[in-house]
């Protein structure tokens, strides 16, 4: 069973490598959005430090929304998804594999890029560290929750807008705790509580999201 999971992750990673531009678009979007704020607001260090966690987190959230649409759409269009539904493997496992690969190519680059971008906002070393930790916990949760929305809106016209409407409310807790942890650390209160909440959200999403997305896929493909 684990072999199937690995096979699907590997397949999606190879596909992403051969379609690099799709992946780079997401990262590029994230970098641009985060970098534009200091330019627009001006070099007022105190203001920048104040808005840093929120801006980086909102940009990460939007970037992951942007990437969602493609999660199942291509497999749906070429019939590969249909075949996945017909394999003797638990569909939720295949969904988990797809989401994992999706996170590796769209989430991890954001996490790696975030500290570099954080420097523009004069974040302290502690702040940067917590930013990376929260993104590391938060972005997989965003991908997992988003997968449910992507599966539900598969094959619909204007699915992109609908996905955002469906998924954004569910992702707001991730945003609040993610940005909150960094803020709390910077202001000296300590962000451990927030980080624990993020981890809890991730665990919940890991368990429930693949099941929900699998059920949604069955309906969408019918």
């Amino acid at each position: 069973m684990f072999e199937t999971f690995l096979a699907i992750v590997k397949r999606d990673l190879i596909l992403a490598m051969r379609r690099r531009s799709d992946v780079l678009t997401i990262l590029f979007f994230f970098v641009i959005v985060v970098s534009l704020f200091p330019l627009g607001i001006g070099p007022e260090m105190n203001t920048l430090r104040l808005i840093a966690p929120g801006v980086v987190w909102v940009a990460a959230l939007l970037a992951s929304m942007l990437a969602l649409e493609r999660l199942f759409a291509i497999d749906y269009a070429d019939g590969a998804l249909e075949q996945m539904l017909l394999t003797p493997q638990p569909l939720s496992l295949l969904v988990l594999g797809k989401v994992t690969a999706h996170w590796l190519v769209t989430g991890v680059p954001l996490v790696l890029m975030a500290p570099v971008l954080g420097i523009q906002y004069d974040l302290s070393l502690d702040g940067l560290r917590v930013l990376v930790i929260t993104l590391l916990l938060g972005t997989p949760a965003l991908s997992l929750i988003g997968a449910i929305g992507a599966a539900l809106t598969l094959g619909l016209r204007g699915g992109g807008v609908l996905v955002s409407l469906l998924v954004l409310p569910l992702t707001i807790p991730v945003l609040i705790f993610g940005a909150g942890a960094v803020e709390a650390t910077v202001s000296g209160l300590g962000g451990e509580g927030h980080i624990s909440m993020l981890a809890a959200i991730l665990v919940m999403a890991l368990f429930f999201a693949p099941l929900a997305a699998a059920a949604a896929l069955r309906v969408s493909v019918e």
Partner: protein
Amino acid sequence: MLEVVDLECVRGDRRLFTNLSFSLSKGELLYLYGHNGSGKTTLMRAICGLLQPTEGEIRWDGEPIRELSEEYTREVLYIGHKNGIKDDLTALENLRVLSTLDGVHITEEQAWDALKRIGLHGFEDLPTQVLSQGQKRRVALARLLAHQARLWILDEPFTALDKAAVEMLQQVIREHLDRGGMAFLTTHQEVELTAGQVKQLQLGKGGQGCV
């Protein structure tokens, strides 16, 4: 053995067929006929389990397929209108990934052999997006050679294939039937297949019925 009992399917507001019953047992081939829009693909998707019929039941070895789920999908191989192969992967990668997902372990050598047999010798290492329609179809059909499914459900398998490939595919289906497999296929082409028991099923205007 596959049994379809009193099946009814509705797409949109249109009732495609109703009270459809037939069965398929070892070594039998079922041809599905019908004009465009008569519900051939819908029937096939229902039998695969991709689509929930409005009424009736589909049984595999006496048990409803809904309850068997993964035990049933293991026995079935469906090749539909869409080939289900990834354009950015090579023929070889496509075949190997699909086999792994199907729970069949094939070695690299077996994959090469299957592709060679299906007539893709020399194209194994090319991304399938540079292949022609017929060659892409062959990549999808190569799964027939690597899979151990008992029931093959083939929706218009001969489209885009050249004459030699049609003959080769007929041979592959014949061998499958000789091994005790079952096949269920639609085609608009006149294809002669005279292995095992051949049944025919007509959908649409002229009424339904198994001949």
